[in-house]
């Protein structure tokens, strides 16, 4: 074979490889809508378009164990559909949050009953939505369960998921996955669902003064990724679009303060060099709390750079990523992370 033929063959092969790369599956960009009391059209379709969100998750209900009745029961529900009036007909996934105390307190029979109850609730919800919006709301094709399950609740939780799937074999069942069970699938098990949303936040201990950022610390995040193999299920990657301040007095954790760094006046707070910690230099009342001189506020706002680094790290490890989602829908906070959200394809 002549040299030129070899070169041509190589060139065509590279070209084909590039085309294949271009044809790799596009990632879905989603956002979580996590409010129950939003005003009319709070989930603005223009905002969704602006940031390129093709899909959203919406929490329909919080379920917790009721010690009085000994059963799992709804604790909060999205009873007002108006906040999503324009958005209901867009691709979305309903989410049900289940407090882990349900599975810690219930047996298998009760877990199965919970699957039946939730199924009934979701069906009635979409039936009523179609009454309200004149049959324009598409049937949901994915349902997500959000639960901070633990090793001791795993068996009942997984059984619940199996039963829920059995009731609706035609829909995709999704579940959220915290970083710990993600890191230890052998010990914690792999939920019997079609896909999972990996929650890349709330990694650290907020009460520990030495924690850098309990929401997302890239170094901490890296330790969760480890050197193991890719997770054995398709993943959606959920990233934080929120933050707060952790308040410490004499190194002892007091409360979360819902403040941004911009709200800390220079007259009252001094930032420690190269740190996300602010020290009160003047007594002040902020966010309803009396902050004394010497108190520390640790800013726990992940930076856009942190999000980019997290995306990069997880993308390098996981090959079966179906999409990226952002927690949670807040038009003010989106601006802080606009570069990441808009650029992420």
């Amino acid at each position, binding site marked *: 074979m002549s040299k030129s033929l070899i070169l041509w063959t190589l060139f065509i092969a590279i070209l084909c490889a590039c085309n294949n790369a271009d044809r790799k599956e596009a990632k879905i960009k989603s956002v979580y809508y996590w409010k129950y009391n939003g005003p009319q059209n709070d989930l603005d379709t223009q905002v969704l378009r602006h940031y390129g969100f093709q899909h959203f998750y919406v929490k329909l209900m919080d379920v917790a164990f009721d010690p009085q009745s000994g059963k799992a029961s709804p604790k909060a529900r999205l009873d007002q559909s108006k906040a999503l009036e324009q958005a209901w007909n867009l691709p979305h996934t309903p989410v049900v949050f289940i407090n882990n105390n349900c599975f810690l307190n219930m047996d298998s029979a009760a877990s199965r009953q919970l699957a039946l109850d939730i199924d009934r609730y979701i069906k009635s919800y979409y039936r009523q939505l179609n009454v309200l919006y004149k049959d324009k709301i598409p049937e949901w094709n994915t349902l997500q369960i959000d639960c901070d399950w633990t090793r001791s609740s795993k068996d009942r939780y997984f059984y619940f998921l199996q039963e829920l799937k059995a009731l609706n074999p035609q829909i995709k069942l999704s579940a959220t996955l915290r970083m710990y069970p993600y890191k230890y699938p052998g010990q914690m098990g792999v939920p019997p669902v079609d896909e999972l949303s990996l929650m890349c936040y709330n990694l650290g201990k907020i009460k520990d003064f030495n924690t850098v950022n309990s929401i997302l610390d890239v170094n901490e995040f890296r330790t969760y990724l480890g050197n193991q193999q890719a997770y054995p299920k398709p993943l959606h990657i959920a990233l934080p679009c929120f933050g707060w301040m952790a308040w410490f007095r004499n190194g002892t954790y007091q409360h979360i303060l819902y403040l941004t760094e911009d709200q800390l006046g220079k007259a009252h707070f001094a930032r420690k060099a190269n740190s996300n910690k602010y020290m009160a230099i003047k*007594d002040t009342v902020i966010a309803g709390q009396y902050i004394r001189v010497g108190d520390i506020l640790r800013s726990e706002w992940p930076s856009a750079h942190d999000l980019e680094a997290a995306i990069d790290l997880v993308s390098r490890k996981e090959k079966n990523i179906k999409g990226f989602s952002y927690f949670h829908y807040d038009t003010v906070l989106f601006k802080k992370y606009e570069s990441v959200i808009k650029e992420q394809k």
Partner: protein
Amino acid sequence: MRPIFKSIVLFICCILPNLLWACGPSLYPDEARFALFRNGINGQEGFEPFFYSEYFLNSNAPDPTGKDYKRNCQEWQQITGTGVSLDDIYSVQYNCAPDSFLNAYEQKNWAAFKENSFTNWLLKKKNKAYLDYFVLAKQMEAAQFYRGDPWTASLLDTNSIALDKLSQTALDRTHQTKNTFLKTRYAFQAIKTVYYVKEPHNLSPYLKAFETYIEPGQSVVKGWGYYFYGLLQQDQFKRNVCLLRAFDLSEEKKVAAFNKIESDFLTEIIQEEKDPYLKEVVLAMQGIYTTGRAGAIIVALHQVNPDSKYLPLLLSREINKIEDWIWSYTFLGFSSLGINYEGKPTFSYWNKGYTEDEAQQKVLIAANREKDLEYVDGLCTLMAKMADAHFADKDFLKLAQAHLYNIRGNYTAATRALAGITLPDTSIYYKQWLIESIILCTNTEDINKPEVQARLLQWLQAFDAAPSPNISDNEGKLAENEDDLSELFLVLSKKFQEKGLINTAGLLYNKSHHQRNIYDGWETSWDDAYPPQKKPNSVSPKMNYKQIAFWDRNASPQDLEALIAFKARQNKTAFELYVSPAQWPDDQVYKDLIGTKYMRMERYQDALKVFQSMDQEFWNDNYHYADYLPFTGISDLRTYAPWEKTRSKYYKKTSKADIVADIVAIVDALNKPGLSNEQKAACYIQLGNCKLNMTKNGLFWMMLSYGNFGQENRENSGNFYTYTFYPNTIAYGDNYYGAKSAMIAYDKALKLSKNKELQAAAYLYKELALILSDQKPDYNYDEKRPATQNVKMLRKYFAGTKAYEAAASYCADIDL
């Protein structure tokens, strides 16, 4: 993990299993707060949710005494006449489920209500209009609290349709009825019910009805109505103004209105609103929201209305804040201020925070205390001005002034403030007066005098016996007002301690049972906390650290001897009987502490005498001695010292007496005449071993201490859940943490001996003492350790000895 380090960790893990919580125990809000100024002493019980608290609200129960409900019943009684009892009205209004009433009405079967004078009145033909009203009200109640299937969505909300119809009916009847009383009631039902309708069609007739029939009147429903009327307003400013009125006019809606008011608008309202009444309420609300200093708000409120009912509330809150900022530390050791016993800024290991800027932070934190005291002065001046000008509740103001002066330590001024007050024991202020009197007495009189103690006793007993008119059942067990007597005991204890009367101070301290930020041990049975008649079936141990914690920290052996004598004394005064515990600890408990104190002083003969005078089974049967005092000899360092081949001793039982007897024997041997230098050196090695074994990381630490916590070190003064040797650290820390005395003994052995094996052993023991003490050189376990002088000597001169070889082969902690 290196063997010695591993063994230390295992050892410590075994010692205090109860203390190894993952995150440490936590306290309830307000549990670590000290407050002796009683909330609500002026009878404003409706403000209970807004008393100063570490919770967002002190309680969530509105109208704790049911004032509004009673007022509503009284308004009905004005219609029915006194032939109908208030209780019967209340029963139908608030205790009767809507279904019961409506079933009786629909089935015309009132048998269950036949004893109720109010129902009988309603059923009279002439009162049909009132019955109709009541039926509608109960229907509304049923609809409002209707709960459908929780597992079916409620987007269509059929219940809202029912509420819509009912509210329309109520509105129609508002206009139809000629009865003014019923007009007001229907208008209220209409506006309340329409609020719960999800999408009402037209609100304006409902709002109009409220404005026409409720707003001009003075009925109880006016305050309630303002709440719903306000929430239905589109205009944010007006909405908040109405909620302010609801907050002010009603008791039952106070908390709800408080929660709904947007605090950001308070400043705007105060700027725009000219009405002094509204200004007053806004200022009150601002004061309640202010978790920091609210002095300026109080001044403004006093200017707007010196008779304001909110002034005592805000002043009480302010005093409670100051108590929290200053007294919580002084008496409980819980504080935002890191200041040690000498008043210097400090940090404890468990809450060590901003280490890099510690120096800066120390200065800033110390400044807080100064500023707080200055603020107290400012408030004292403000109150004096209020007293000179006009203040509706003079007694309240005087007691508040006295309390602030007491906090400030200005007892002359406190006496002056109290001078004008004469209160009967039925007065709501009586308990506060007693508090001020007790504080004043302890600070201005000789509390060692029997007559002063008799007066204190009289006041304490009066305090215990006096009712607490403003404490409702809503307050939880830990609510701040409930622990005032306990806090008074701490005030007295501190003062007795300052006077050097340690035993009285300790007895009062133990009587207090108040949670302090210092390790006092934990109750292991009900006996420790409650007198025998209250205890459930439980085994009471003879010894609990709680019984002696105060004396362990503060008493001398002589104090404890005096305490044993006091315990046995028959002719105690009434005050002495009062401070005595319901159940005294066994004498053995005190004796053990005396002996232990002698051990710390290295007065081994004295310790032996005390221990030998005790029940010899005491250590076997009580506390943790049997768990943590080993049977191997006191001079035996076991695996710590693999070069030591002689294992001399094995105790038959747990006995401090036997252990000390061995130490005394070594000391006696040393003092024997005619001993050779080599024999003496061998004795010093043994004595050094005994002393090293009684250090914090030694095997017999319990000979000197009553606890052993992993992170304990000589710098920390402990906290409420971790044991510390402090303040014994000050006198004995060098030996207990630093193994100083053991090292001195080894040095003496080195000086006396010419024997290479013994010298090698002495250097090895010295190195071991260094490792077990807090003087060990700082290094990472991954790194090569720097060689100490001991190691250098061993390498240079003793490498060929058996001791050296044994240490090099079997002792990983000494890096040879």
